[in-house]
């Protein structure tokens, strides 16, 4: 029952985003600020996660391919496809749920408990539209780009480690990666990226927007934002795979 209560309140909150902005310029400025915060601010962590994920996948794939008759190019195929289908979109989104989700929930939650949201509403500003709308839009615009970066760096990480450790030569890695590449997989990956971006930003914003209490509750909301976003990503990951693959 409590699930439907929160689902209903979440949907009602989302409905409030679709109102005409009071001032397009200010909304635009807020969008750019959020794009910088979410996009540029996450490049570092995404780079580290992607490079090491690719490197580890190469090493572990080679470890499991013990049969000598299997071509080493298979490693390139597995690493690139894993990066495209799962490591890039899903692992990156889970990491971003921690970084961006907690940030969104705590920012909005702090504004709630310090009455800044009340101040906006009393001024006649549609607070969800101004505070949440630009965050969701910024996430939808920047997280897929981060995921493209992640896929590229993950594959590159695997390739570089394969070359440096002698597990698989560069040429064979690329040959394997090319042999299994399908454009549909890229579309599927971007579908996941857009879905996960929306889930991270909207669920975290919801958690922050309805905080009641003080700093302790803001902390709890931040934690809940990460937990629920992560669970939603995993559920959506399964549903999309079942529907689209």
């Amino acid at each position, binding site marked *: 029952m409590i699930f439907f209560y929160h689902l209903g309140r979440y949907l009602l909150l989302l409905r409030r985003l679709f109102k005409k902005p*009071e001032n397009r310029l200010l909304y635009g400025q807020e969008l750019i600020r959020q794009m910088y915060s979410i996009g540029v601010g996450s490049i570092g962590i995404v780079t580290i996660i992607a490079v090491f994920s690719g490197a580890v996948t190469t090493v572990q794939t080679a470890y499991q391919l013990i049969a000598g008759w299997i071509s080493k190019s298979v490693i390139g195929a597995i690493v690139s496809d894993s990066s495209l289908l799962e490591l890039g979109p899903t692992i990156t989104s889970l990491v971003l749920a921690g970084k961006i989700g907690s940030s969104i929930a705590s920012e909005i939650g702090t*504004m709630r408990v310090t*009455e*800044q949201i009340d*101040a906006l*509403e009393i*001024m*006649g500003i549609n607070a969800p539209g101004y505070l949440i709308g630009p965050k969701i839009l910024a996430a939808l615009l920047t997280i897929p780009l981060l995921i493209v970066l992640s896929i590229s760096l993950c594959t590159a990480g695997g390739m570089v480690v394969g070359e440096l450790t002698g597990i698989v030569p560069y040429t064979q890695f690329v040959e394997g990666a090319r042999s299994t590449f399908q454009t549909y997989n890229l579309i599927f990956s971007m579908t996941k990226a857009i879905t996960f971006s929306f889930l991270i930003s909207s669920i975290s914003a919801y958690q922050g927007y309805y905080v009641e209490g003080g700093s302790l509750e803001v902390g709890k909301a931040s934690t809940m934002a990460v937990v629920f976003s992560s669970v939603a990503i995993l559920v959506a990951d399964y549903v999309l795979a079942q529907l689209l693959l």
Partner: protein
Amino acid sequence: MIEIQSVTKNFGQKTVLHRLSARFEPGHVSMIIGSSGSGKSVLMKILVGLFAPDDGHVFYGSNDFFNLDIEAKTEIRKQIGMLFQNSALFDSLNVAQNVLFPLQMFSNHTARQQLERVNHCLERVGLAGTNHLHTSQLSGGMRKRVGIARAIALEPRYLFCDEPNSGLDPLTSIKIDELIREITLESDITTVVNSHDMNSVMEIGDHICFLFQGRMLWTGSKSNIMETDCQELNDFVFATSFLKQMRGRSKGHAR
């Protein structure tokens, strides 16, 4: 003019406001007083439209606020300025940007005119030259002043102040009170102040409403508050033994 008629508010089974009626006139500072938990903050939130009453009406002029459509409500909200207990300044903006925010959002003035208005408002509250300070660099009194500057930026017809003196020393409190009173008189604003600070009540309260357990037990002016027979109000006003002694003496002299 703001008028409330038979306003009732429940939270679950608990009725926190019982059929309150009052009228707040322009050019006057109306004070809502009462002890903690008496319903002052809930009434204030109903007045500014953050909570809807379960029964009763809130009139802004002749407009029944809670029966208006969203556009009409927004138009009235643009005429409302509010000073929050903790100022509620936007953390991500500096002093000037906080005051500028409602102007940017709603006014059709040029950027230059908006900046002039910001400087005028900051000067009016005694904070000229603080434009670039960050909100974290401000003292409690300065935060209140910036809050007032932001509240008056759009030249509101209605000003609401929630515990304007909380956390301030007596001298700063008096300055904030004077500022609220001056602004009310200058622009003929309808000002409603929520407070439990009796110094403030006696300093600026033209019209006083006393709330006790969600009921309006007494209304009147500061001149007749000292002679009331309302026991609950006397207990609230003369809360300390010192004040009780003072009152006893003054009554003795009167006889």
